[in-house]
């Protein structure tokens, strides 16, 4: 059965920094795809990446868990995982879980890349 959840991840390169642009709802059924994309970056030798969540309308604890795993992996390699969050609904989820203290969060992909 095809998933009915609106979700897409596209990868691009921004000034040498891999940028994963996520769109739609990131939940228990779609988070594994994001996990695979982050893992592929790490295994491909990338140590710093940006995940753009500005087009994301929903995240749950499984999505947050994937991002936490990603940032741990990249920081262990000396890099970082930076996030772009613009939607108040998504910001709120990071705030109530205390993850604003874990991630570096930026208002645009450009700022995240330049950081």
């Amino acid at each position, binding site marked *: 059965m095809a998933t009915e959840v609106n979700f897409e991840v596209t990868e691009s390169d921004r000034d040498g920094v891999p940028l994963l642009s996520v769109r739609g709802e990131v*939940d228990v059924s779609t988070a594994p795809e994001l996990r695979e994309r982050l893992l592929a970056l790490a295994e491909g030798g990338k140590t710093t990446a940006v995940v753009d969540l500005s087009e994301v309308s929903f995240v749950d*604890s*499984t999505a947050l868990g994937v991002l936490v795993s990603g940032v741990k992996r990249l920081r262990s390699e000396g890099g970082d995982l930076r996030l772009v969050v613009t939607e108040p609904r998504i910001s709120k989820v990071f705030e109530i*879980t205390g993850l604003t203290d874990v991630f570096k969060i930026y208002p645009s992909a450009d700022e995240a890349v330049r950081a």
Partner: protein
Amino acid sequence: MSDATWAVPGNDVLHERDHVELSLPARPELLFLVRMTAAAVASRADFGYDQIEDLRLAIDELALTVSGDEATAGRLQLLFKWTEDAIEVVGIYEPDEAEGPRRDLGVAQPANELSARILDALVDEHGADVVGGCPRAWLRMRRRKASRQ
């Protein structure tokens, strides 16, 4: 399901205005149906936008609490009740008969620490236990004055 299945702490004080039952296969790709139903119920109960969005996330975490994050042969049963001032949701995972009891632990637990933090922050009360061998979780969200429409 018996009335006892849906009786959770504190719900004897709610004077139910209406309720909706939802039964679906416990598969991750169908979780969006649970969120859609929660949003529809909260809208029907005249909750404001912020609380509707909070309930969508909270119900997602409740479903993960009882059914886990992997596809199973069992079913997820949900009862949504609402009153003038609150929405209450009870979720139960019913294992497939061939599957047998799914969890070794006696009580359902939030899917992870992040899930527990989300539920703590978004709803007024929540809990988890086991009824008839089936993991059960429940939550109650009271209307915030600022969101009354």
